[in-house]
């Protein structure tokens, strides 16, 4: 297999070439970006195939010392935790670049060289965050990936408040990230003190140098802040409504589909293995945040009328489920969470794309009150939307159902009461998903609606996403088997801490 660096840097290299070389051509940067994202997708598929069912540990490791004074390594590796998410990232970026190139939803981007450069930089940074096996490198990629989105939303976004929205988005998320930076450095230094003064950030080494419970706890909270903002989870979602309204649709597809997953991935790949005692200690807090996200997100999703916000708040609820699965601290819950990360990304990107298509048919309005009756002349579009909507509400038969089932199973084994409340979230999901579908596609025909069928170009964007949704629905084991062993080992120590703590308490009681 080619080294992982090629996968990471290929997109931004294509973006850079497009920005520097293609001076007088408007199409060329887009085509170069398309080639770059397609190449990355091909590589990602090759890695998924190679990381077969039952694999475990790191594969294709690249390990070079980046900054020797700080003990920072440039270490990349494929594991069961990130291999599917890498596939998701490359797929969604490919779809988004395709959408931008074919110019279906809106006019082709103004200043295309810069637009594609930022998109490709974003892809590289996200891939870097998923593949990094060094804490400092992860933090660097995690912070970096926000910067292209700052430009993308501010320069190509919609509405008069886009600059305000993008500053809000970046400040919100970077505040979390910077706290994480301090926590990450503290982790390296404190672990280094046990290691005879050799500071290190390599994840596998850090795992062997557990911190004291006291340090773990504050470090956990700093990391959690970064990841929860990114997801976003309930009390920290303030940037989401403005941000989602302002984003250009191609950007929104990848932002909602991929960036939120980096947060969830961080919990699974970094927080649980490195700070297991703190994870067990704060389990209840995290479960409550997850529950609140589910309830609040769902409630907002069925009261909003802006189609993007319905999808946005539904993401809050879905990410709540994912957090729930992770902090069940059981292998099933975490497995379900990982599957659900992939599922949610696969589903939410086409939802946003379809919303843009619907808006184009409803006179430009994204308000569901002004849509309606679109299905009549667009049966294919309606079918595609229905498939996606049913997957969103986790219809039995979809991979989302498997994911949610595993999550709830895991929570059931851990905290019964939480699981019971979370079940309400499943019901609410069907309410908001079907409400969006019915209000947009059926009902009374909206005032400015001019329905027309899905064009071939639009279908081309949706086809790969739909194909993967259907494939995972038929064969979720393909995903589960690949991640099983990595996920189990990732949760193992936190799970052990959880099960020993009550008995230790019981032992001290007379």
């Amino acid at each position, binding site marked *: 297999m080619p080294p992982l660096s090629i996968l990471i840097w290929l997109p931004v290299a294509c973006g850079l070439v497009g*920005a*520097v070389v293609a*001076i007088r051509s*408007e199409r060329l940067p887009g085509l170069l970006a398309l080639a770059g994202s397609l190449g990355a997708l091909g590589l990602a598929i090759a890695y998924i195939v190679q990381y077969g069912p039952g694999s475990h540990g790191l594969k294709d490791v690249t390990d070079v010392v980046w*900054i*020797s*004074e*700080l003990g920072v390594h440039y270490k990349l590796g494929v594991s069961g935790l990130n291999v599917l998410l890498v596939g998701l990232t490359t797929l969604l970026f490919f779809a988004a670049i395709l959408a931008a190139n074919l110019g279906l939803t809106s006019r082709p981007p*103004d*200043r*295309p*060289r*810069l637009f594609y450069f930022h998109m490709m930089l974003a892809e590289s940074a996200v891939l870097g965050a998923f593949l990094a096996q060094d804490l*400092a490198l992860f*933090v*660097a*990629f995690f*912070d*970096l990936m926000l*910067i292209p989105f*700052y*430009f993308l939303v*501010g*320069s190509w976004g919609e509405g008069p408040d*886009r*600059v305000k929205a*993008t*500053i809000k988005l*970046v*400040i919100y998320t*970077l*505040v979390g990230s*910077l*706290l994480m*930076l*301090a926590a990450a*450095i*503290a982790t*390296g*230094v*404190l672990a*280094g003190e046990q290691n005879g003064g050799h*500071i290190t950030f390599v994840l596998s080494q850090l795992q062997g140098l557990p911190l004291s419970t006291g340090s773990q706890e504050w470090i956990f909270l700093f990391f959690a802040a970064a990841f929860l903002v990114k997801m976003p989870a309930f009390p920290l979602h303030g940037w989401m409504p403005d941000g989602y309204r302002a984003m250009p649709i191609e950007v929104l597809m990848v932002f909602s589909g991929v960036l939120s997953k980096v947060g969830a991935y961080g919990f699974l790949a970094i927080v649980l293995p490195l700070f297991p005692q703190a994870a067990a200690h704060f389990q209840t807090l995290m479960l409550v945040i997850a529950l609140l996200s589910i309830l609040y997100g769902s409630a907002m999703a069925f009261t909003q009328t802006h189609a993007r916000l319905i999808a946005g708040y539904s993401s809050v609820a879905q990410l709540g489920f994912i957090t729930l699965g992770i902090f069940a601290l059981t292998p099933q819950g975490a497995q379900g969470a990982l599957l659900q990360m992939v599922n949610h990304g696969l589903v939410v990107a086409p939802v946003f794309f379809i919303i843009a298509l619907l808006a184009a048919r409803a006179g430009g309005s994204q308000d569901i009150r002004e849509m309606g009756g679109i299905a009549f002349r667009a049966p294919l579009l309606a079918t595609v939307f229905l498939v996606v909507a049913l997957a969103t509400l986790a219809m039995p038969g979809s991979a989302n159902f498997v994911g949610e089932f595993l999550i709830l199973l895991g929570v059931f084994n851990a905290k019964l009461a939480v699981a019971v409340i979370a079940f309400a979230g499943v019901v609410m999901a069907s309410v908001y998903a079907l409400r969006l579908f019915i209000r947009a596609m059926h009902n009374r025909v909206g005032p400015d609606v001019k329905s027309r069928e899905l064009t071939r170009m639009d279908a081309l964007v949706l086809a790969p996403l739909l194909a993967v949704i259907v494939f995972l629905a038929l064969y979720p084991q393909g995903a589960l088997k690949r991640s099983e062993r990595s996920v189990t080992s990732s949760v193992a120590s936190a799970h052990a801490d959880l099960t020993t703590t009550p008995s230790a308490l019981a032992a001290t009681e007379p």
Partner: protein
Amino acid sequence: MTVLAVTHLKGPHVDFAALSPLVAFFGGAIVVLLVGLLGSRKIREQVVPALTLVALGAALGLTIWRWKEPESILSGALRIDRLSLTLNLILAVGGMATVLLAWRSKAAREAAHGELHAMLLSTLGGMALLVAAQNTVALFLGLELLSIPLYVLCATEMRNEHSLEAGLKYLIVGSVGSATLLYGIALLYGATGATDFGAIANAISGSGLASNAMLLTGVALCVAGLAFKASVAPFHQWTPDVYEGAPTPVTAFMAVATKVAALGVLLRLFEVALIEAHGSWGPALAALATITILVGNVGALGQSSLKRMLAYSSVAQAGYMLAGVVVATRLGAQSMVFYLAVYLAMNMAAFAVIVARERETDLGDNVQAMAGLGRERPWLAWPMTISMLALAGIPATAGFIGKFYLIDAAVAGGYTWLGVVIVIGSMISLGYYLPVIATMWMTPSPTPGSVPAIAGGSQELDPIAPAADRDQPELVLVAVLAGAATIAFGIVPQPLFNLVHGVGSALGLL
């Protein structure tokens, strides 16, 4: 008897080889001053700055030539070691950038070119003397040599009352600072009976003076005096006014070089002479750093004048760098000097762009002068963007590595909370750095029609630069070089680490 008198008059041995960088600065000042007296306008406008560059180049080369084992010269008055040599390098490079920024400036014209450049060189000489000072007399000498020409430099735009006001203000405040420092030095001498740094340290450890009231008062007064120079809160109030009023090239010089000198001498004074009293001044300096970070960052919020904004930002950055002094470890000293080098690149990029826009628009240093820069002047917009991102500490820039190193030093030195304060400061700083970027890339130019707005005829990243870039190539050169260095050292920081390696051991720290 007569023999004795003769030996007394003999004076110390002068090692001119070791002193040669200083000779280059001061000799250059005299040459430049005399050449500036020649009548020809061409000589004054072209030859004088060129000669200044030659003098600075000579100082740079001689500094590299002396790059060897540390030595004390002039009877131990000066110490030529890695710290002073490294800072000399930074000072010489900063001086060169300043000469380029001032090449066509109004200040240079009005102050008769020779005088401005001669004063610049003698200030730099004073700074080089200051950072090498090994006893308190040399320290004060260096400080005055630094300060007096600088007061005049601030007032060189003789027909601009703001410039005159800045000069006067700086003179008054600076004199108070110098007087405070002098009093502090006197008290140190009173307590320890020594002027030499090594002898002071011996006196403190030998006679247990670490909590002596006279000594601590002296230390406090020294801190206050140097804090005036380094614009450390609460002694920073002059900074925004003077930075705003002074000619912009001089502001750039003050922001970078003065900080290098003041923090450099702070490092040497505290970590050589007063290291035994670390327990007393460490926490106090940490508190000062905290105040500085918060005051600087909060003050910069909402400033519409870029120079004022950068003034407050420089206050904040001084606070970050103080953390390197506070911990009194080898790591701390190295991280501070590392950050100083990075700080030079970041600030010079920003100031070059501000100078360019001051000359092109009638908006002065208002942030609105940056509007539309991304579309029209990519060669200025990118360096400014990189500079703002680096000052905020975004990954892939040297600012991130610098901050990482400082936080690392703070945590390893037992000041984890100070690391968190640095991070909180960075968060606040996003609130004023990001809007500048937004103005450049997301706000249309205030003067429509300066560049034909052809749809799709994208101007960004255009190698065929608009005519204005050709008018002042030296500014674009400084901006691009500084911006490129900021990115390059953010990705491959090893050369900078090698540069500062040995700074800590030069001070005899652990």
